[in-house]
Protein backbone atom coordinates (compact mmCIF):
# COMPACT_ATOMS: atom_id res chain seq x y z
CA UNK A 1 0.00 0.00 0.00
CA UNK A 2 2.91 2.27 0.82
CA UNK A 3 3.87 1.86 -2.85
CA UNK A 4 0.60 3.22 -4.11
CA UNK A 5 0.55 6.02 -1.56
CA UNK A 6 -0.36 9.30 -3.18
CA UNK A 7 2.73 11.50 -3.48
CA UNK A 8 0.91 14.52 -2.01
CA UNK A 9 -0.18 12.65 1.10
CA UNK A 10 2.61 12.77 3.64
CA UNK A 11 2.12 15.81 5.84
CA UNK A 12 -0.64 14.57 8.10
CA UNK A 13 0.28 11.56 10.30
CA UNK A 14 -3.45 10.75 10.78
CA UNK A 15 -3.49 8.73 7.59
CA UNK A 16 -2.80 8.91 3.88
CA UNK A 17 -4.35 8.60 0.45
CA UNK A 18 -3.52 5.68 -1.82
CA UNK A 19 -4.70 4.12 -5.05
CA UNK A 20 -6.15 0.62 -5.28
CA UNK A 21 -7.79 -0.85 -8.40
CA UNK A 22 -7.65 2.62 -9.94
CA UNK A 23 -9.69 4.01 -7.06
CA UNK A 24 -8.55 6.68 -4.65
CA UNK A 25 -8.86 5.50 -1.04
CA UNK A 26 -7.80 6.76 2.34
CA UNK A 27 -6.23 4.85 5.21
CA UNK A 28 -6.71 6.16 8.76
CA UNK A 29 -4.37 5.28 11.65
CA UNK A 30 -5.26 4.75 15.36
CA UNK A 31 -3.87 8.21 16.20
CA UNK A 32 -7.01 9.64 14.50
CA UNK A 33 -9.56 6.96 15.50
CA UNK A 34 -11.03 9.02 18.34
CA UNK A 35 -11.73 11.96 16.06
CA UNK A 36 -12.96 9.78 13.20
CA UNK A 37 -15.39 7.88 15.42
CA UNK A 38 -16.70 11.07 16.99
CA UNK A 39 -17.21 12.66 13.56
CA UNK A 40 -19.07 9.56 12.42
CA UNK A 41 -21.12 8.83 15.52
CA UNK A 42 -22.23 12.41 16.08
CA UNK A 43 -23.54 12.49 12.51
CA UNK A 44 -21.33 15.46 11.70
CA UNK A 45 -19.77 13.77 8.65
CA UNK A 46 -23.26 13.11 7.31
CA UNK A 47 -24.26 16.72 7.86
CA UNK A 48 -21.20 17.87 5.95
CA UNK A 49 -21.97 15.45 3.09
CA UNK A 50 -25.59 16.43 2.99
CA UNK A 51 -24.74 20.13 2.77
CA UNK A 52 -22.21 19.40 0.02
CA UNK A 53 -19.34 20.83 2.01
CA UNK A 54 -17.12 17.75 2.26
CA UNK A 55 -16.47 15.00 -0.29
CA UNK A 56 -18.67 12.03 0.77
CA UNK A 57 -17.01 8.72 1.64
CA UNK A 58 -17.87 5.15 2.51
CA UNK A 59 -16.16 3.06 5.13
CA UNK A 60 -14.61 -0.02 3.51
CA UNK A 61 -13.07 -1.80 6.47
CA UNK A 62 -12.27 -1.20 10.09
CA UNK A 63 -9.75 -3.01 12.25
CA UNK A 64 -7.85 -2.21 15.44
CA UNK A 65 -4.90 -0.90 13.44
CA UNK A 66 -6.45 0.86 10.46
CA UNK A 67 -9.64 2.11 8.86
CA UNK A 68 -10.10 2.30 5.08
CA UNK A 69 -12.51 4.74 3.52
CA UNK A 70 -13.31 5.41 -0.11
CA UNK A 71 -14.25 8.97 -1.04
CA UNK A 72 -16.45 9.77 -4.01
CA UNK A 73 -14.08 9.78 -7.00
CA UNK A 74 -13.44 13.23 -8.40
CA UNK A 75 -12.64 13.16 -12.13
CA UNK A 76 -10.14 16.01 -12.10
CA UNK A 77 -8.37 17.67 -9.18
CA UNK A 78 -7.57 21.33 -9.83
CA UNK A 79 -5.12 23.35 -7.76
CA UNK A 80 -5.43 26.89 -6.31
CA UNK A 81 -3.09 28.41 -8.91
CA UNK A 82 -5.47 27.20 -11.62
CA UNK A 83 -8.53 28.95 -10.22
CA UNK A 84 -9.99 32.26 -11.29
CA UNK A 85 -10.59 35.00 -8.73
CA UNK A 86 -14.17 34.03 -7.96
CA UNK A 87 -13.30 30.35 -7.69
CA UNK A 88 -10.54 31.23 -5.23
CA UNK A 89 -12.98 33.36 -3.32
CA UNK A 90 -15.50 30.55 -3.12
CA UNK A 91 -12.84 28.15 -1.83
CA UNK A 92 -11.97 30.65 0.93
CA UNK A 93 -15.61 31.13 1.88
CA UNK A 94 -16.15 27.38 1.94
CA UNK A 95 -13.25 26.91 4.36
CA UNK A 96 -14.64 29.59 6.71
CA UNK A 97 -18.13 28.20 6.47
CA UNK A 98 -16.86 24.75 7.42
CA UNK A 99 -14.85 26.16 10.33
CA UNK A 100 -17.88 27.98 11.72
CA UNK A 101 -20.08 24.91 11.27
CA UNK A 102 -17.41 22.74 12.93
CA UNK A 103 -17.12 25.08 15.92
CA UNK A 104 -20.86 24.91 16.40
CA UNK A 105 -20.59 21.12 16.57
CA UNK A 106 -17.55 20.84 18.82
CA UNK A 107 -14.94 20.42 16.08
CA UNK A 108 -12.33 22.64 14.48
CA UNK A 109 -10.28 22.56 11.28
CA UNK A 110 -6.70 21.72 12.19
CA UNK A 111 -5.44 23.11 8.90
CA UNK A 112 -6.72 25.57 6.33
CA UNK A 113 -4.65 24.83 3.24
CA UNK A 114 -6.04 25.98 -0.10
CA UNK A 115 -5.11 22.54 -1.42
CA UNK A 116 -7.84 21.05 0.79
CA UNK A 117 -10.36 22.39 -1.68
CA UNK A 118 -11.09 21.50 -5.29
CA UNK A 119 -13.95 22.00 -7.76
CA UNK A 120 -16.54 19.31 -8.36
CA UNK A 121 -20.17 19.34 -9.57
CA UNK A 122 -20.03 23.07 -10.23
CA UNK A 123 -18.89 24.14 -6.77
CA UNK A 124 -15.97 24.26 -4.38
CA UNK A 125 -15.67 21.11 -2.29
CA UNK A 126 -13.52 20.30 0.74
CA UNK A 127 -11.58 17.11 0.07
CA UNK A 128 -9.41 16.57 3.14
CA UNK A 129 -11.54 14.33 5.33
CA UNK A 130 -8.91 14.17 8.09
CA UNK A 131 -8.66 17.93 8.62
CA UNK A 132 -11.20 17.89 11.44
CA UNK A 133 -10.17 17.76 15.08
CA UNK A 134 -11.88 18.32 18.42
CA UNK A 135 -12.41 21.90 19.47
CA UNK A 136 -10.73 22.61 22.80
CA UNK A 137 -12.59 25.20 24.80
CA UNK A 138 -11.01 28.68 24.66
CA UNK A 139 -8.25 27.71 22.28
CA UNK A 140 -7.40 30.06 19.38
CA UNK A 141 -7.66 28.71 15.81
CA UNK A 142 -4.41 26.89 15.02
CA UNK A 143 -5.01 27.23 11.29
CA UNK A 144 -5.63 30.99 11.45
CA UNK A 145 -2.26 32.00 10.02
CA UNK A 146 -2.50 29.31 7.38
CA UNK A 147 -5.88 30.64 6.31
CA UNK A 148 -4.44 34.15 5.99
CA UNK A 149 -1.42 33.07 3.93
CA UNK A 150 -3.33 30.57 1.76
CA UNK A 151 -6.52 32.51 1.14
CA UNK A 152 -6.70 36.13 2.27
CA UNK A 153 -3.17 36.96 1.05
CA UNK A 154 -3.56 35.83 -2.59
CA UNK A 155 -7.07 37.32 -2.78
CA UNK A 156 -5.85 40.68 -1.49
CA UNK A 157 -2.90 40.71 -3.88
CA UNK A 158 -5.30 39.94 -6.73
CA UNK A 159 -7.55 42.76 -5.56
CA UNK A 160 -4.72 45.31 -5.49
CA UNK A 161 -2.41 44.03 -8.24
CA UNK A 162 -4.54 41.95 -10.59
CA UNK A 163 -5.55 38.34 -10.96
CA UNK A 164 -2.08 37.24 -12.12
CA UNK A 165 -1.10 37.47 -8.45
CA UNK A 166 -3.00 34.25 -7.84
CA UNK A 167 -0.28 32.46 -9.83
CA UNK A 168 2.14 33.28 -7.02
CA UNK A 169 0.75 30.26 -5.24
CA UNK A 170 2.80 28.09 -7.62
CA UNK A 171 5.89 29.29 -5.81
CA UNK A 172 4.46 29.58 -2.31
CA UNK A 173 2.61 26.31 -1.87
CA UNK A 174 2.74 26.85 1.89
CA UNK A 175 1.12 30.25 1.55
CA UNK A 176 2.31 33.77 0.74
CA UNK A 177 4.94 34.85 3.31
CA UNK A 178 3.27 37.36 5.59
CA UNK A 179 6.19 39.83 5.56
CA UNK A 180 6.23 39.90 1.79
CA UNK A 181 2.50 40.43 1.79
CA UNK A 182 2.68 43.49 4.08
CA UNK A 183 5.37 45.06 1.90
CA UNK A 184 3.27 44.55 -1.22
CA UNK A 185 0.05 46.02 0.12
CA UNK A 186 -0.59 49.77 -0.27
CA UNK A 187 -0.27 52.03 2.77
CA UNK A 188 -4.01 52.62 2.97
CA UNK A 189 -4.50 49.01 4.06
CA UNK A 190 -2.90 50.03 7.37
CA UNK A 191 -5.77 52.45 7.94
CA UNK A 192 -8.36 49.73 7.55
CA UNK A 193 -8.92 48.12 10.99
CA UNK A 194 -9.78 44.73 9.48
CA UNK A 195 -6.70 44.59 7.26
CA UNK A 196 -4.47 46.17 9.87
CA UNK A 197 -5.30 43.54 12.47
CA UNK A 198 -5.43 40.51 10.17
CA UNK A 199 -2.32 41.34 8.13
CA UNK A 200 -0.04 44.05 9.48
CA UNK A 201 -0.46 43.28 13.15
CA UNK A 202 -0.15 39.57 12.44
CA UNK A 203 3.18 40.27 10.70
CA UNK A 204 4.38 42.30 13.70
CA UNK A 205 3.46 39.57 16.17
CA UNK A 206 5.13 37.01 13.93
CA UNK A 207 8.36 39.01 13.95
CA UNK A 208 8.21 39.53 17.67
CA UNK A 209 7.77 35.87 18.51
CA UNK A 210 9.73 34.05 15.85
CA UNK A 211 12.85 34.01 18.03
CA UNK A 212 10.91 32.18 20.67
CA UNK A 213 12.53 28.78 20.10
CA UNK A 214 11.59 27.39 23.48
CA UNK A 215 7.94 28.08 22.97
CA UNK A 216 7.76 29.92 26.28
CA UNK A 217 5.31 32.55 25.11
CA UNK A 218 1.94 31.51 26.36
CA UNK A 219 -0.76 31.71 23.70
CA UNK A 220 -3.66 33.72 25.02
CA UNK A 221 -7.01 32.16 25.47
CA UNK A 222 -9.70 32.95 22.99
CA UNK A 223 -13.36 32.33 23.63
CA UNK A 224 -15.44 30.53 21.03
CA UNK A 225 -17.52 33.67 20.58
CA UNK A 226 -14.34 35.64 19.82
CA UNK A 227 -13.16 33.05 17.33
CA UNK A 228 -16.55 33.10 15.64
CA UNK A 229 -16.19 36.88 15.33
CA UNK A 230 -12.88 36.40 13.48
CA UNK A 231 -14.38 33.79 11.16
CA UNK A 232 -17.50 35.84 10.43
CA UNK A 233 -15.62 39.08 9.78
CA UNK A 234 -13.22 37.25 7.44
CA UNK A 235 -16.23 35.81 5.64
CA UNK A 236 -17.95 39.20 5.29
CA UNK A 237 -14.79 40.86 4.02
CA UNK A 238 -13.86 38.17 1.48
CA UNK A 239 -17.43 37.91 0.22
CA UNK A 240 -17.30 41.57 -0.79
CA UNK A 241 -13.79 41.46 -2.25
CA UNK A 242 -13.55 41.96 -6.01
CA UNK A 243 -11.07 42.78 -8.75
CA UNK A 244 -11.14 45.79 -11.00
CA UNK A 245 -10.14 44.42 -14.34
CA UNK A 246 -11.44 44.27 -17.80
CA UNK A 247 -10.34 41.66 -20.22
CA UNK A 248 -8.86 41.67 -23.68
CA UNK A 249 -11.05 38.62 -24.23
CA UNK A 250 -14.01 39.79 -22.20
CA UNK A 251 -15.97 40.93 -25.19
CA UNK A 252 -14.09 38.69 -27.55
CA UNK A 253 -17.12 37.33 -29.32
CA UNK A 254 -18.47 40.79 -29.88
CA UNK A 255 -15.39 42.12 -31.58
CA UNK A 256 -14.26 38.95 -33.28
CA UNK A 257 -14.18 38.58 -37.03
CA UNK A 258 -16.89 35.98 -36.90
CA UNK A 259 -20.19 36.71 -38.57
CA UNK A 260 -23.13 35.29 -36.66
CA UNK A 261 -23.88 32.67 -39.33
CA UNK A 262 -20.26 31.47 -39.39
CA UNK A 263 -20.31 31.33 -35.61
CA UNK A 264 -23.42 29.18 -35.62
CA UNK A 265 -22.02 26.99 -38.36
CA UNK A 266 -18.91 26.33 -36.29
CA UNK A 267 -20.93 25.58 -33.14
CA UNK A 268 -23.20 23.14 -35.00
CA UNK A 269 -20.22 21.40 -36.56
CA UNK A 270 -18.54 20.88 -33.18
CA UNK A 271 -21.81 19.68 -31.76
CA UNK A 272 -22.26 17.06 -34.49
CA UNK A 273 -18.70 15.74 -34.12
CA UNK A 274 -18.93 15.54 -30.35
CA UNK A 275 -22.24 13.75 -30.73
CA UNK A 276 -20.86 11.30 -33.29
CA UNK A 277 -18.17 10.15 -30.85
CA UNK A 278 -20.64 9.82 -28.00
CA UNK A 279 -18.26 12.01 -26.02
CA UNK A 280 -18.42 11.81 -22.22
CA UNK A 281 -15.40 13.88 -21.27
CA UNK A 282 -13.66 16.72 -23.03
CA UNK A 283 -11.20 19.50 -22.55
CA UNK A 284 -11.44 22.82 -24.32
CA UNK A 285 -7.94 24.26 -24.34
CA UNK A 286 -8.42 27.97 -24.82
CA UNK A 287 -12.16 27.78 -24.29
CA UNK A 288 -12.64 31.42 -23.32
CA UNK A 289 -15.83 31.75 -21.27
CA UNK A 290 -17.19 28.34 -22.28
CA UNK A 291 -19.41 29.64 -25.08
CA UNK A 292 -18.75 26.72 -27.42
CA UNK A 293 -18.95 24.05 -24.73
CA UNK A 294 -22.37 25.44 -23.75
CA UNK A 295 -23.53 25.08 -27.36
CA UNK A 296 -22.92 21.31 -27.19
CA UNK A 297 -26.28 19.61 -26.78
CA UNK A 298 -24.81 16.14 -26.24
CA UNK A 299 -24.78 15.20 -22.55
CA UNK A 300 -21.26 15.39 -21.16
CA UNK A 301 -20.04 14.06 -17.80
CA UNK A 302 -17.12 16.44 -17.42
CA UNK A 303 -15.95 19.34 -19.56
CA UNK A 304 -12.77 21.12 -18.52
CA UNK A 305 -12.70 24.59 -20.04
CA UNK A 306 -9.33 26.32 -19.83
CA UNK A 307 -8.24 29.77 -20.77
CA UNK A 308 -5.22 31.92 -20.08
CA UNK A 309 -7.39 34.89 -19.14
CA UNK A 310 -8.72 35.09 -15.59
CA UNK A 311 -11.67 37.27 -16.63
CA UNK A 312 -12.91 34.80 -19.22
CA UNK A 313 -12.59 31.94 -16.72
CA UNK A 314 -14.29 34.02 -14.05
CA UNK A 315 -17.13 34.84 -16.41
CA UNK A 316 -17.42 31.15 -17.24
CA UNK A 317 -17.53 30.29 -13.54
CA UNK A 318 -20.16 32.85 -12.60
CA UNK A 319 -22.25 31.73 -15.59
CA UNK A 320 -22.15 28.11 -14.45
CA UNK A 321 -23.10 29.17 -10.91
CA UNK A 322 -26.11 31.06 -12.21
CA UNK A 323 -27.12 28.23 -14.58
CA UNK A 324 -26.33 25.60 -11.92
CA UNK A 325 -24.28 23.59 -14.42
CA UNK A 326 -22.46 20.68 -12.83
CA UNK A 327 -20.32 19.26 -15.62
CA UNK A 328 -18.09 22.24 -16.40
CA UNK A 329 -14.76 22.85 -14.64
CA UNK A 330 -13.36 26.27 -15.65
CA UNK A 331 -9.61 26.65 -15.15
CA UNK A 332 -6.94 29.27 -15.76
CA UNK A 333 -4.27 27.69 -17.95
CA UNK A 334 -1.47 29.00 -20.10
CA UNK A 335 -1.00 26.39 -22.83
CA UNK A 336 2.56 27.63 -23.29
CA UNK A 337 3.28 27.10 -19.59
CA UNK A 338 0.95 24.57 -17.95
CA UNK A 339 1.31 24.08 -14.16
CA UNK A 340 4.42 22.07 -13.34
CA UNK A 341 4.96 19.35 -10.76
CA UNK A 342 5.62 21.09 -7.44
CA UNK A 343 6.64 20.52 -3.85
CA UNK A 344 8.81 17.75 -2.45
CA UNK A 345 10.34 15.64 -5.23
CA UNK A 346 8.27 17.79 -7.60
CA UNK A 347 5.49 15.26 -7.08
CA UNK A 348 3.53 16.70 -4.17
CA UNK A 349 1.38 18.69 -6.57
CA UNK A 350 1.07 16.90 -9.85
CA UNK A 351 1.72 18.73 -13.11
CA UNK A 352 -1.25 19.73 -15.24
CA UNK A 353 -0.07 17.43 -18.02
CA UNK A 354 0.09 14.37 -15.73
CA UNK A 355 -3.38 15.08 -14.42
CA UNK A 356 -4.87 15.66 -17.86
CA UNK A 357 -3.22 12.50 -19.19
CA UNK A 358 -4.77 10.57 -16.34
CA UNK A 359 -8.13 12.20 -16.99
CA UNK A 360 -7.65 11.33 -20.67
CA UNK A 361 -10.58 13.25 -22.17
CA UNK A 362 -12.45 11.67 -25.11
CA UNK A 363 -12.06 14.84 -27.15
CA UNK A 364 -9.83 17.90 -27.09
CA UNK A 365 -11.13 21.15 -28.51
CA UNK A 366 -8.57 23.67 -29.72
CA UNK A 367 -10.56 26.51 -31.22
CA UNK A 368 -8.91 29.70 -32.43
CA UNK A 369 -5.79 28.69 -30.57
CA UNK A 370 -3.23 27.30 -33.00
CA UNK A 371 -2.30 30.71 -34.45
CA UNK A 372 -1.54 31.99 -30.95
CA UNK A 373 0.56 28.94 -30.06
CA UNK A 374 2.39 29.02 -33.39
CA UNK A 375 2.80 32.74 -34.03
CA UNK A 376 2.97 34.18 -30.51
CA UNK A 377 4.57 31.18 -28.85
CA UNK A 378 6.79 30.17 -31.79
CA UNK A 379 5.77 26.55 -31.21
CA UNK A 380 6.11 24.50 -34.40
CA UNK A 381 3.25 22.43 -35.81
CA UNK A 382 5.11 19.22 -34.94
CA UNK A 383 5.47 20.30 -31.33
CA UNK A 384 1.83 21.29 -30.88
CA UNK A 385 0.65 18.09 -32.61
CA UNK A 386 2.68 16.03 -30.14
CA UNK A 387 1.33 18.07 -27.26
CA UNK A 388 -2.32 17.46 -28.19
CA UNK A 389 -1.63 13.79 -28.93
CA UNK A 390 -0.22 13.27 -25.43
CA UNK A 391 -3.55 13.44 -23.63
CA UNK A 392 -6.46 12.62 -25.87
CA UNK A 393 -7.39 10.43 -28.85
CA UNK A 394 -9.55 12.91 -30.74
CA UNK A 395 -8.83 16.49 -31.58
CA UNK A 396 -11.18 19.11 -32.96
CA UNK A 397 -8.97 21.95 -34.09
CA UNK A 398 -9.66 25.18 -35.87
CA UNK A 399 -7.07 26.52 -38.25
CA UNK A 400 -7.29 30.25 -39.11
CA UNK A 401 -5.80 30.74 -42.57
CA UNK A 402 -3.11 33.26 -43.37
CA UNK A 403 -5.72 35.70 -44.65
CA UNK A 404 -7.50 35.78 -41.29
CA UNK A 405 -7.26 39.22 -39.72
CA UNK A 406 -6.00 37.90 -36.37
CA UNK A 407 -3.28 35.92 -38.14
CA UNK A 408 -2.36 39.01 -40.15
CA UNK A 409 -2.15 41.04 -36.98
CA UNK A 410 0.07 38.48 -35.27
CA UNK A 411 2.29 38.21 -38.37
CA UNK A 412 2.68 41.98 -38.62
CA UNK A 413 3.93 42.20 -35.06
CA UNK A 414 6.83 39.97 -36.12
CA UNK A 415 8.38 42.83 -38.10
CA UNK A 416 11.48 41.79 -40.00
CA UNK A 417 11.07 38.18 -38.86
CA UNK A 418 7.76 37.88 -40.62
CA UNK A 419 9.35 35.73 -43.35
CA UNK A 420 10.37 33.23 -40.69
CA UNK A 421 6.66 32.39 -40.33
CA UNK A 422 6.07 31.64 -44.00
CA UNK A 423 5.59 28.04 -42.92
CA UNK A 424 2.23 29.01 -41.39
CA UNK A 425 -0.08 27.49 -43.99
CA UNK A 426 -2.81 24.89 -44.20
CA UNK A 427 -0.57 22.53 -46.19
CA UNK A 428 2.22 22.57 -43.62
CA UNK A 429 -0.26 22.26 -40.78
CA UNK A 430 -1.86 19.20 -42.38
CA UNK A 431 1.49 17.65 -43.18
CA UNK A 432 2.74 17.96 -39.59
CA UNK A 433 -0.50 16.83 -37.94
CA UNK A 434 -0.94 13.93 -40.39
CA UNK A 435 2.20 12.31 -38.97
CA UNK A 436 0.34 11.59 -35.75
CA UNK A 437 -3.35 12.06 -36.58
CA UNK A 438 -5.71 10.85 -39.28
CA UNK A 439 -7.87 13.59 -40.75
CA UNK A 440 -11.39 12.26 -40.31
CA UNK A 441 -13.12 15.36 -41.60
CA UNK A 442 -12.10 18.78 -42.84
CA UNK A 443 -14.63 21.57 -43.29
CA UNK A 444 -14.09 25.19 -44.30
CA UNK A 445 -16.30 27.61 -42.44
CA UNK A 446 -18.28 29.71 -44.90
CA UNK A 447 -17.75 33.47 -44.59
CA UNK A 448 -14.69 33.00 -42.40
CA UNK A 449 -11.11 32.40 -43.36
CA UNK A 450 -10.91 29.42 -41.09
CA UNK A 451 -10.94 25.63 -41.43
CA UNK A 452 -12.19 23.07 -38.94
CA UNK A 453 -10.48 19.69 -38.59
CA UNK A 454 -11.69 16.58 -36.89
CA UNK A 455 -8.61 14.46 -36.17
CA UNK A 456 -8.14 10.98 -34.72
CA UNK A 457 -4.93 9.68 -33.20
CA UNK A 458 -3.23 7.13 -35.45
Amino acid sequence: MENTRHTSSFRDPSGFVFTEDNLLKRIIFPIYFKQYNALNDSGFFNKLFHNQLLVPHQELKKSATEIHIQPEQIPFISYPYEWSFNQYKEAALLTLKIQKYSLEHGFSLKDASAFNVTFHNGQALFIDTLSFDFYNENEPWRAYKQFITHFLAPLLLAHYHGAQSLKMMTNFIDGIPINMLTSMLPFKTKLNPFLYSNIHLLAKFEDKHNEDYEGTANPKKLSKKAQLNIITSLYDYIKKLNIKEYSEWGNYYEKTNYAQDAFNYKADLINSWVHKLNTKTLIDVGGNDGTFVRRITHKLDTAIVCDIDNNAVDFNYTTLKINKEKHIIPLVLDVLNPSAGLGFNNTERDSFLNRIQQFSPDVTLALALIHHITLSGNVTFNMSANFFASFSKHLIIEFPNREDSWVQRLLNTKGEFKAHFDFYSEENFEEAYSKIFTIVEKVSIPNAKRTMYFLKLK
Partner: protein
Amino acid sequence: MYFLYFDPSVGAMIVQAIVATVAGVILFSKNLMYKIKTFFGLHKHQDDLYEDINVDDSDVDKK
Protein backbone atom coordinates in the same frame (compact mmCIF):
# COMPACT_ATOMS: atom_id res chain seq x y z
CA MET B 1 -3.50 16.83 21.49
CA TYR B 2 -2.72 18.36 18.16
CA PHE B 3 -0.49 16.87 15.51
CA LEU B 4 1.58 19.80 14.48
CA TYR B 5 2.74 19.08 10.99
CA PHE B 6 2.85 22.78 10.23
CA ASP B 7 3.81 25.74 12.35
CA PRO B 8 0.78 27.64 13.61
CA SER B 9 3.20 30.38 14.82
CA VAL B 10 3.05 31.63 18.39
CA GLY B 11 2.55 35.20 17.18
CA ALA B 12 -0.48 34.19 15.14
CA MET B 13 -2.00 32.48 18.18
CA ILE B 14 -1.53 35.52 20.41
CA VAL B 15 -2.65 38.12 17.88
CA GLN B 16 -6.05 36.46 17.50
CA ALA B 17 -7.23 38.06 20.76
CA ILE B 18 -6.76 41.51 19.20
CA VAL B 19 -8.08 40.46 15.79
CA ALA B 20 -11.21 39.13 17.46
CA THR B 21 -11.77 42.37 19.36
CA VAL B 22 -11.48 44.40 16.16
CA ALA B 23 -13.77 41.92 14.39
CA GLY B 24 -16.27 42.25 17.22
CA VAL B 25 -16.39 46.02 16.85
CA ILE B 26 -16.74 45.78 13.05
CA LEU B 27 -19.55 43.23 13.28
CA PHE B 28 -21.34 45.20 15.98
CA SER B 29 -21.29 48.43 13.99
CA LYS B 30 -22.35 46.63 10.82
CA ASN B 31 -25.30 45.10 12.59
CA LEU B 32 -26.21 48.49 13.97
CA MET B 33 -26.03 50.11 10.53
CA TYR B 34 -28.08 47.27 9.11
CA LYS B 35 -30.78 47.78 11.71
CA ILE B 36 -30.83 51.53 11.17
CA LYS B 37 -31.05 51.10 7.39
CA THR B 38 -33.79 48.52 7.71
CA PHE B 39 -35.69 50.82 10.07
CA PHE B 40 -35.61 53.62 7.51
CA GLY B 41 -36.27 51.21 4.66
CA LEU B 42 -32.92 51.93 3.06
CA HIS B 43 -31.71 48.38 2.94
CA LYS B 44 -31.23 47.09 -0.59
CA HIS B 45 -31.47 43.39 -1.11
CA GLN B 46 -28.56 42.19 -3.20
CA ASP B 47 -28.61 39.18 -5.43
CA ASP B 48 -25.61 37.26 -4.24
CA LEU B 49 -23.59 34.63 -5.98
CA TYR B 50 -22.47 33.39 -2.58
CA GLU B 51 -24.62 32.28 0.31
CA ASP B 52 -24.11 33.57 3.81
CA ILE B 53 -21.86 31.76 6.23
CA ASN B 54 -24.52 29.79 8.08
CA VAL B 55 -25.29 26.24 7.10
CA ASP B 56 -29.00 25.59 7.13
CA ASP B 57 -29.43 22.60 9.41
CA SER B 58 -33.19 22.35 9.05
CA ASP B 59 -32.72 20.61 5.68
CA VAL B 60 -30.62 17.96 7.35
CA ASP B 61 -33.12 17.30 10.09
CA LYS B 62 -35.94 16.86 7.65
CA LYS B 63 -34.05 14.13 5.87
